[in-house]
């Protein structure tokens, strides 16, 4: 049973003061969150000084990097770090825990029902600040704000059950803090909230209105990447513009390989091999394997895709990578009854061996 804390203070202020107390009382070593600088720029940072916690912007609608990727690189520590991140970032973190890249105990995670982020090109400058008031209103009204990342419009995973603390934001008519303490770790820190705890679970049905709209938007996104036929022609239509920069896998929180297979020796072809292809097919696209890279990445990680949309945002050729990966990811994951980032205990399908599996394929 979650403990529920309600405060009559602005949720940003409440979180700041909670984190300050945690830091002052040595419960955490530092805080990982978005921060705003004097020059108006917003980035992710690790804050270890109580005073500098004044600069954090926990709910800012911007994602310069998927924080799950940043969290996924921490080696074991004595004291945990408190991280306030968006649901998809937390889910990515969970996927990294499953892959032995980081320990769950490293972090006390605060997440919330996120309204979406603005694309990178808008930048953390005045433009977002100007839109902020409208954005917050639309989140309160459970409308999808205009101009956010397309992948955010279709995101249905805004209630991550395994975070330590969950802040209800979407649909809340005021900006006051409503926090659900879901784990023992979070409950142990109750005293630092200075409020009266109740026994209460988060009412999922309160998100229904928004989720319906999000589902529609998701169908729309999936329809946009639907190809006319199955097979290579359709895929080339979508990925034809790819320049092979691998920016998508660079920013993807799930792609954790030190050296991607597609950048390694295995795809460094000898000229004779390429000339043989050239002679057999009459023509050869260079650099080779542009499409193959995407197919490979799909098969390697799509079922763990958290739909954060970093990939589409960084793509210099405006390819809707996130929509494709999310669509295929969800379809593949469904085959295994798997949902990416839902629970640390839920094993990655490719790591589980079952003697009897997909008998229908055998038939």
């Amino acid at each position: 049973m979650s403990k529920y804390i309600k405060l009559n203070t602005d949720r940003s202020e409440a979180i700041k003061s909670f984190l300050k107390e945690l830091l002052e009382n040595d419960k955490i070593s530092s805080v990982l969150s978005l921060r705003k600088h004097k020059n108006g720029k917003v980035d992710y940072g690790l804050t270890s000084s109580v005073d500098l916690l004044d600069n954090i912007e926990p709910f800012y609608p911007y994602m310069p990097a998927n924080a799950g990727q940043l969290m996924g690189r921490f080696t074991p520590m004595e004291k945990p770090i408190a991280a306030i991140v968006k649901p998809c970032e937390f889910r990515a973190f969970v996927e990294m825990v499953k892959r032995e890249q980081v320990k769950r105990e490293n972090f006390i995670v605060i997440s919330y029902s996120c309204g979406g982020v603005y694309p990178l090109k808008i930048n953390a400058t005045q433009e977002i600040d100007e839109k902020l008031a409208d954005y917050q209103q639309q989140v309160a009204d459970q409308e999808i704000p205009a101009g956010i990342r397309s992948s955010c419009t279709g995101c249905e995973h805004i209630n991550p059950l395994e975070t330590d603390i969950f802040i209800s934001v979407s649909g809340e008519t005021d900006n006051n803090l409503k926090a659900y303490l879901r784990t023992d770790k979070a409950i142990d820190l109750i005293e630092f909230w200075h409020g009266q705890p109740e026994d209460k679970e988060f009412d999922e049905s309160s998100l229904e209105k928004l989720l319906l709209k999000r589902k529609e938007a998701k169908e729309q996104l999936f329809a946009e990447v639907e190809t006319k036929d199955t097979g290579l022609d359709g895929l080339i239509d979508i990925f034809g513009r790819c320049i092979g920069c691998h920016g998508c896998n660079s920013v993807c929180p799930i792609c954790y390989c030190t050296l991607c297979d597609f950048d390694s020796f295995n795809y460094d072809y000898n000229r004779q091999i390429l000339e043989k292809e050239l002679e057999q097919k009459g023509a050869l696209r260079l650099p080779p394997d542009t499409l193959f890279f995407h197919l490979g990445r799909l098969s390697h990680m799509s079922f763990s895709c958290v739909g954060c949309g970093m990939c589409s945002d960084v793509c210099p050729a405006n390819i809707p990578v996130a929509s494709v990966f999310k669509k295929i990811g969800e379809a593949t994951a469904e085959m295994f009854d798997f949902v990416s980032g839902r629970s640390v205990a839920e094993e990655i399908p490719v790591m589980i061996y079952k003697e009897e599996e997909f008998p229908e394929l055998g038939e």
Partner: protein
Amino acid sequence: MTEIPQKGVLLNSENGIQNSILEFLKTAAEKKVFDAIMLPMKVPSGDSFAWIMIKDMALLDNTTPLAPIMPVNAAKAVKRFTRKGEGRNKVAILIRPCEVRACVELSKLNQIKTEDLVIMSYDCPGALPMQDYIKDPEWGDSEFKKLLSDNIWNSDIVKPVCKFCDKFSLPASDLHFGRENDRLLLMANSEKGIDFISEMKLEANEELDNWKKGIGEITSKRISIKKETFSVIKNKVEGLDNLLNTFSECIGCHNCQSACPICYCRQCYFDSVVSKPNSDIVLMRAKQRGGVSLPLDKLMFHTGRMAHMSLSCISCGLCSDACPVNIPVAKIFSYVASETQKTFEYTAGESFGDALPMKEYKPEELGELGDLVNSAGIQEGDHE
């Protein structure tokens, strides 16, 4: 400096530069002057271009020899083809001067072999920003057509690096297509080029003086623009505060490094284990100033990349094209590169024969740095 050819071949250009060049290449293919040729082709979705190595010459009609955009630097494409192993096809490529310069640098780094490669280039009017083209390919095609047909050299719609490019003509290629208004002049720039022209049964009888003069005038204008651009960018990045500010938007995606033709490392140093320190080190750094930006060392990635590759930077601008947050990487790196290259009296991409400063040992070098040390009052043997 490449030897400037004395005379050229005047090619028929009634149907426009693109078509003339395509006809010429078709003839060359028929005469089997080359076995395969790499040219840009529009992708099926019609909104971008890709490099295609063609052996079946019937496909030549599907190519656009002079592409409006440069999504991939040709040197990167050629590198994948020639780095390892011997070939049996004589290959020709038709690429922009900056791409030729990238090929020159990569060949010095043992990434491109030029033995059975014929490099052709052309007077480049510039390239449009890739994203602008993708958003409206029809507009892009028609604008680029105008650049060629109307001989525009001061266009506003080309990439920022193209606006100040003073090396848009006659790089260290084997053959070059010069444009003098609507005249198309083919000139040989090497032994291979001379052989090519004679295999085509053509004779170089056309005077090139007018063309050289025209190119010279445009080049002078571009040099002034370059000076101005650099002084503006210098103010933007000079000093640590300005540098930090300019790169503060950087999200550390490393797209600039992936798109750069010169960055040839299989794994960038800044993606290696050094970018993944233990938690205790990260926390120590956070403690030093009360906080630290994540991912770590975004600025050091840029200054490190400058240290590693600015001596070979050929200002193709792919880095800026690839940047998702609109940092003017190409301008900044071009400016820094012009300074570092000047220090070593080296011009990247100019000639296959110039040794890379990094690979050359000179017992006496950079004497002025010794003077700097002396003037700083540091004496040998000083200790606490």
